């Protein structure tokens, strides 16, 4: 919990741009393979997904079966995002 006099946490958070990729059925729902989103620096991947879920309710239905990635590695939904990060929401994989 931030102390009120901690200037680092009370300062306005910088907004950063992240790249977002969609694959498989998610690409069909969103209607694009790639997008860019501005959000406060340090926002978790979950917050980014919520924005798309609000735009595309059908996307939100798949949340339980998705895994997130940040910069080509699987990442926890709580992972904070920073400028230039590449995020993808990955449906269950079916290669092979």
């Amino acid at each position, binding site marked *: 919990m931030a102390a009120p006099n901690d200037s680092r946490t009370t300062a306005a958070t910088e907004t950063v741009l992240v790249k977002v990729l969609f694959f498989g059925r998610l690409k069909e729902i969103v209607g694009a393979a790639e997008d860019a989103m501005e959000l406060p620096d340090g926002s978790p991947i979950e917050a980014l997904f919520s924005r798309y879920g609000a735009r595309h309710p059908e996307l939100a239905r798949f949340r339980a079966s998705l895994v997130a990635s940040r910069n080509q590695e699987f990442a926890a939904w709580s992972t904070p995002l920073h400028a230039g990060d590449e995020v993808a929401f990955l449906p269950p994989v*079916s290669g092979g």
Partner: protein
Amino acid sequence: MSELSQNDLILLVREPLAHAALVEHVRQPEDGAVVTFDGCVRNHSQGRRTLYLDYEAYDSMALGKMRQIAKQIHEKFPIHRVAIAHRLGRLEIGETSVFIAVSSAHRPAAFEACRYAIDTLKRTVPIWKKEYFEDGAVWADGEVPPAPVETRAAKPAS
């Protein structure tokens, strides 16, 4: 798109896979065995007749995950060389979608490593297939990759 590291061959291709070239790549004079896995397009899925498949990948991450699999099987098994190739795009019935070749001095390592490689690929590599039937198309039921444990500290996955 290809990557050559430490004599392993990791590929995503959009044309028919060259099985013989992959086998020749891993087969060296010091090897006593080459084990291959040829994953091919089946003409039926859950009781329906399949017409063809269409594969897509998160290319950069898929190559990274395939490289990690090659690294893992070198660590786990006394093998020599590995080739892992996956095809993308439209594939007809009977065509090869994935081909894995592993060489080793003695056969048990190559058998086990090849099995480990395909099982891990199917669970962790971001590739998806859409199945086309006479009456429509669906994204194949897949496997949910093992996700990093959620932590409040939210340190980036390494």
